[in-house]
């Protein structure tokens, strides 16, 4: 099926199902998805900063990260996700953004991570200063730590126009029951959890719930911190990967994730420009359909 026709068909099908839609109207042909609560389209591949951007004051490493982030934006990237828990990552992101002149395409996403609700506002202000942005697009309660207090703070900030979106996160497949409870009871815009071709637990309840409640989903750990891609790279990419316009494993794994109708964005992390290029390849070309997704699962499982 022709790429454009397939995407149009898929978008129409998802709209009919009431699921978050693929928005493919961007002139560059980049795969974007809509944030359900507003309809705002964002590129389906974002960038994580866990480990990769925690380089402290090392000028050489910081310069290299500027190149990585520049490549990300040049290839159509938008969402950059970080956390106060990531050591110096927020400071390094701020350094890179300053060096790049804070591109307009930036969708700034970070987290609040402190066990005291009272400390939340100060931590958020520190993060904002480190990033050098006027306000964040998205603030998330990291790993549901003190989530009741922090959600109250974030929702107030959103009501005052000091924040655009509110979310919660978890990782490693933990606390999914708590995440579900928050999704069912709180007016959040985003939820973030682990999803990749080998860790698919969220397909059972979290992703359907996100679709049902109109909550955007951010997939973290798309490569299992590198273990997954290191494993599959020992094997050849299947020749039929060309059917979804994939010529590298990173794009293959990421296209699987973002082809799920309820996934809004995947956030791979890298410290290398060549790997960033491979990641961003997932934004282009044909998107796997249901049959192709099953084929991809079977192939990776067989490796």
């Amino acid at each position, binding site marked *: 099926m022709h790429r454009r026709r397939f995407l149009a068909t898929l978008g129409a099908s998802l709209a009919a199902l009431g699921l978050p839609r693929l928005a493919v109207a961007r002139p560059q042909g980049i795969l974007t998805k809509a944030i359900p609560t507003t309809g705002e389209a964002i590129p389906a591949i974002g960038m994580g900063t866990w*480990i990769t951007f*925690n*380089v*402290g004051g*090392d000028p050489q*490493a910081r310069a290299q990260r500027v190149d990585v982030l520049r490549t990300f934006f040049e290839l159509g990237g938008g969402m950059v996700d970080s956390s106060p828990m990531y*050591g110096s990552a927020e400071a390094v992101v701020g350094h890179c953004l300053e060096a790049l002149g804070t591109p307009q395409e930036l969708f700034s996403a970070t987290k609040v991570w402190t066990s005291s609700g009272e400390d939340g506002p100060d931590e958020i202000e520190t993060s904002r200063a480190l990033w050098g942005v006027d306000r964040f697009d998205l603030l998330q309660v990291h790993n549901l*730590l003190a989530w009741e207090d922090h959600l109250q703070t974030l929702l107030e900030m959103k009501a005052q126009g000091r924040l655009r979106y509110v979310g919660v996160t978890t990782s490693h497949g933990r606390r999914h029951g708590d995440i579900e409870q928050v999704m069912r009871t709180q007016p959040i815009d985003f939820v973030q959890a682990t999803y990749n071709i080998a860790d698919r637990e969220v397909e059972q309840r979290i992703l359907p719930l996100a679709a049902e409640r109109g909550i955007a989903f951010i997939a973290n750990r798309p490569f299992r*911190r590198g273990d997954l891609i290191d494993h599959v790279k020992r094997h050849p990419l299947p020749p039929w990967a060309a059917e979804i316009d994939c010529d590298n494993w990173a794009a293959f794994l990421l296209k699987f994730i973002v082809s799920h109708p309820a996934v809004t964005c995947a956030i791979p992390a890298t*410290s290398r420009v060549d790997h960033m290029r491979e990641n961003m390849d997932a934004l282009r070309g044909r998107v796997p359909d249901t049959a192709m997704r099953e084929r991809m699962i079977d192939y990776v499982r067989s490796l």
Partner: protein
Amino acid sequence: MGNWSDYALSDFLMFAPDTYFRLYERINADGWPFALVATVGLLIAIGLAARQSGRAASAIHWALAVVWAFVAWAFFYRLYAPINLAAQWFAAGYLVEALALVIAGWTATVQASLRVNPWALALLAYALIVHPLTAAALGRDWAGVELFGLAPDPTALATLAVLLMCTGKAVAVARVIPLLWCVISGLTYAAMDLPYAWVTPAIALLATVGAWWSRRRRLEGFTQ
């Protein structure tokens, strides 16, 4: 945080191995003359202490205290803390050890003959010579070799060697933190999935047990 048993050691690692090893390149670029002075000074002091014992042994401990305080500031606080939330506690541990060495210096004496403790001498040679070479042999850049006086591992290992050569009321207590650091370093390397993670803690523990066994046999010889 859920069940701690769900977490793997690697889940606590906040940085990439290349970022960690860049710390050594940076500390070497900033302070290599200090490593040279510290190493030569340590060897001269040990030689003097082997002949004169008491006062020189105290001087070694106090000089080592300066080295530990320097590593606490230059490596842990200035370079490592920005990428590892735990590093400020490591800095505090190195300062506590500096204090322990100052106290140990008041009571320290060098064993009657350095030859009676080949374990400690072997550990010293490993810390000052083999450990830096090992890092390079394993493929890391020469610019990032770990040097006594700048990097925490060879500093802890060399200090442990000196402490195993000495006796004194507080000397045994001062051995605890160098040993503990070697274990922490091993865990850090294990979290980075490096196959040689066990080398530093294993060598530190082996030398300590060997030195203890050597001393015990000597004491038994005196009592027979």
